[in-house]
């Protein structure tokens, strides 16, 4: 089981702040493809970065059971 976190506009697109999913030994890129099947517009409008367990990761990063994945749309703090 992995936990996926969404923020800002992406959270509104999904309708919830987080979802759990059974997933193991898949890459971040593969997770994005799976999410796009359910939410076609999720990654369409803006380029999101991704963090695995609170560290910035890449499309090739491999996800393990127990990981927390966060999609990070362009930030606007300050």
């Amino acid at each position, binding site marked *: 089981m992995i936990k996926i976190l969404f923020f800002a506009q992406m959270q509104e697109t999904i309708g919830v702040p987080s979802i759990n999913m059974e997933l193991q030994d898949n890459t971040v890129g593969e997770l994005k493809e799976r999410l796009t099947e359910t939410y076609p517009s999720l990654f369409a409008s803006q380029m999101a970065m991704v963090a695995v367990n609170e560290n910035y990761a890449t499309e090739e990063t491999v996800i393990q059971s127990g990981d927390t994945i966060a999609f990070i749309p362009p930030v606007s*703090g300050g």
Partner: protein
Amino acid sequence: MTSEMHEVTSEPLQLEHVIRKVESPAAGAITTFIGTVREWTKGRRTIYLEYQAYVPMAVAMLEQIGHEVNTRWPGTKVAISHRIGSLNIGEAAVIIAVSSPHRRVAYEANAYAIERIKDMVPIWKKEHWENGEKWIGNQAGTVVYPDGQPEKEMKQT
């Protein structure tokens, strides 16, 4: 959520509290930056702002910015507090305090810290207007991340 020097909080920010964290007998200067909620942006009137954060990662990234500043300008102390939740016009959204033996570095390091916050700390703001609302993306509108993530460290300009 808070570490010793860096915090993300829904409570109103207090300048004195942030300054106290960087006070030091070695300091000859303390600079502070206060980011406040602006009423008018590109001709549109904001009623209030809503800030959201990925809190544990945001605190970790603020700590990283503190480390970057210490590495680049040895002898500095950095404290950053960022507020989340609903903020009214004029309220402080972020306070950065930097102390240094000499003033020039205190200014430079403080300016570096806010640019890094806007680059890579997972915090977002939503403008609420009289007749609508919008999550704001990267404000420069020009930043792209070819590697899918921010640069490890900002190039010095």
